[in-house]
C-alpha cells in the first residue's frame, strides 16, 4: 500500500490531466441527470426580473470575452430571453474591448427571435473605454457617455432611450462580469451613490469576492459561474416544454462539473493520504 502511495506521489502530472480529460469527456458522451437546487441568490435575481413590467428598462453591462464564455454566455442568453419575453427595454454596453464581437451577435439573434425592433425595443451602445471613469460617467448620463450607439445613431434620439439618461433611470442594472472592469467597479463607483438595483452574473473565480455584496444588499441577486447559470436556466425555462427550449448549455454542463469535482476530491484525498503516510515513514 505504502509503495503504491509512493508511486502515486511520484506520478507524472500528465496522468492527472488525462484523468481530468476522461472525467469531462465520458459524462458528455454518456449523459445522465443529477439533480441540483436553486440558490437563494439566483432565486432573488429571477424574482426581481419577474417583477418587471412591460416597458421597464434594463441596462446590461456585458463585460466578458471568449475566455469566460462557457460560464457567462448561458446566463447572458437566458437573461436576454427572460427580458425580451417580458417586453422589457434592453440597453446594452460594454467596458471590455474584446466583448462586442461576442455579445452583439447574441443580442441581435435573441432580439430577432422575439421580433424586437432595434432602437425601439433594444439597442447596443458598444464599447466605452475609461474603466471606473466610464462607469462614473454612466452614473451621470448614459447619453453623454455614449453620444452615438454602435450603429452610429444619436443615442438621445433612439425611442428606446425615452425617459432614460442617468443610470438610475433604469429599473435594473445587470453586470455580466468576467473580472475588471465589471461588477466590483460598478458596485464601488455608482451602486451605492445612486442606490441602484443591481444584479451580477460573474465567473466562479469572482463569486467569493461578490457574495459579500449580495449579503450586504448591494446586489439584489448573484449568479456565480456555470452552476449559477444552470440554476437561472432552470427557473426561466421551468414552464417551457422541452421541445421548445433552446439548448441549455449550463444545465448540460452541470453533470460533467460534478464528475470533474469528484475527480479533484479523490485526487486531494489520495494526495493528502500519500503525503501524511509517507511523511510518517520518512520520520521513522
Amino acid at each position, binding site marked *: 500500500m505504502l509503495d503504491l502511495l509512493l508511486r502515486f506521489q511520484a506520478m507524472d502530472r*500528465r496522468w492527472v*490531466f488525462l484523468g*481530468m*480529460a476522461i472525467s*469531462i*469527456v465520458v459524462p*458528455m*458522451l454518456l449523459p445522465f441527470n443529477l439533480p441540483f437546487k436553486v*440558490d*437563494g441568490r439566483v432565486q432573488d435575481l429571477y424574482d426581481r426580473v419577474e417583477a418587471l413590467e412591460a416597458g421597464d428598462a434594463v441596462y446590461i453591462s456585458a463585460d466578458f470575452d471568449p*475566455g*469566460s*464564455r*462557457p*460560464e457567462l454566455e448561458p446566463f447572458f442568453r437566458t437573461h436576454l430571453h427572460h427580458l425580451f419575453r417580458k417586453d422589457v427595454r434592453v440597453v446594452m454596453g460594454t467596458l471590455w*474591448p*474584446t466583448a*462586442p*464581437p461576442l455579445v452583439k451577435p447574441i443580442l441581435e439573434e435573441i432580439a430577432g427571435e422575439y421580433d424586437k425592433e432595434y432602437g425601439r425595443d433594444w439597442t447596443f451602445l*458598444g*464599447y*466605452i*473605454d475609461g474603466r*471606473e*471613469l466610464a462607469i*462614473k460617467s454612466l452614473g451621470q448620463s448614459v447619453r453623454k457617455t455614449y*453620444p*452615438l450607439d454602435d450603429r452610429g445613431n444619436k443615442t438621445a434620439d433612439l425611442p428606446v432611450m425615452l425617459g432614460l439618461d442617468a443610470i438610475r433611470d433604469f429599473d435594473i442594472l445587470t453586470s455580466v462580469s468576467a473580472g475588471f472592469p465589471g461588477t466590483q*467597479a460598478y*458596485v*464601488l*463607483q455608482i*451602486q*451605492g*451613490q445612486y442606490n441602484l438595483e443591481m444584479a451580477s452574473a460573474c*465567473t*466562479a*473565480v469572482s*463569486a*467569493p469576492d461578490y457574495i*459579500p455584496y449580495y*449579503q*450586504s*444588499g*448591494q446586489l439584489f441577486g448573484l449568479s*456565480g*459561474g*456555470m*452552476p449559477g447559470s444552470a440554476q437561472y436556466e432552470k427557473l426561466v425555462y421551468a414552464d417551457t416544454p422541452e421541445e421548445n427550449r433552446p*439548448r441549455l*448549455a449550463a444545465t*448540460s*454542463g452541470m453533470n*460533467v*462539473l460534478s464528475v*470533474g*469535482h469528484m475527480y*479533484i476530491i479523490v485526487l486531494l484525498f489520495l494526495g493528502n493520504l500519500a503525503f501524511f503516510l509517507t511523511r510518517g515513514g520518512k520520520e521513522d
Partner: protein
Amino acid sequence: MDLLTITGIWISIFLTLAILSFLYDDNPIYKFAEHLFMGVGIGIGTIEIYYGVFQPKLLRPLLEEHRLLSLFPLLLLVLLFAKVTRKHQDWARIPIAFIVAAFAGVKLTGEANGRLVEQVRASMPDLQTLYETNGWWDWDNGGAGVISGLVLVLGLCACLLHFYFSTPHNKPMRAISRIGILTLMLSFGASFGFTVMGRISLAIGRAEALLGLDQPNSLIKLGSMEVHRMTATRWTTVGTMLLVILSIAWLKRRAANSAEAD
C-alpha cells in the same frame, strides 16, 4: 452552413488542441497558437479602441464639430509619447499626473462608499431579524441564520486580532489567533473550490466544442455528401489531434537530432 463556417470550426479545433498540447510539453505548435491569440487579441482591442474612443471622443469632436476643447486631450496624448524621447521624457509626467490623480480620486471615493461603509455595516448582522427570518440555521437558504451571523462576527474579530501585533500573542491571544487562521483557511478553501469550478467549466466549454455539442446537430454539405455536424466535428477533432501529435513528435525528433549533431 457555408465553407467559411466549416473553416472556422476547423481553425477553432486546431487552436484548442494546439493550446492543450502544452499540458504534454512546451512545443512550437503551442507557441504558434499562443502568439496568434496575443496578436488577434491586441488587434481586436486596437480596432475597438479606435472606433469606440478615438473616433467618437477625439476625431469627430475635433474635425467635424470643431470643438477646440478637444485639443486639450490631444495635447495630453502627444505629451504621453514624449516618454519615448530621452530629452523630453519629463513632459510625459503631465498626462501621467492627470491619469494618476483621476484614478486615485475615483478609487478612493469608490472604496469608501462601496466597500468600507457598506461592508462594515453588513459585518454587524441584526441577530433578532436573522432569527425571525431564518431561525438558528436555515438549510434551504444556504445555512443563513443566527449561527451563521455569530460565525461571521466571531470569525471577523478573530481574523482582525490575528493581524494585531501591538500586543504580545500570549495564551488567550494565541487561541483567538488560531480561530482567525482557521477562518482564513476556510475562506481560502472556498476560493480554491470556486477557482477549480471555474477552470473545469472552461474545460467543459472547449470539450463541447471539440465534440460538436455546442451547436445544433444539423446536416452539412461536404461536396456531394451530407453529414451531421457532430459527426464531422468529431472526425475533424480526431484527425487534428493525430496531426498535432505527429507534428509535435516530428518537431521534437528534429530538435533532438540537431542537438545531437551539434
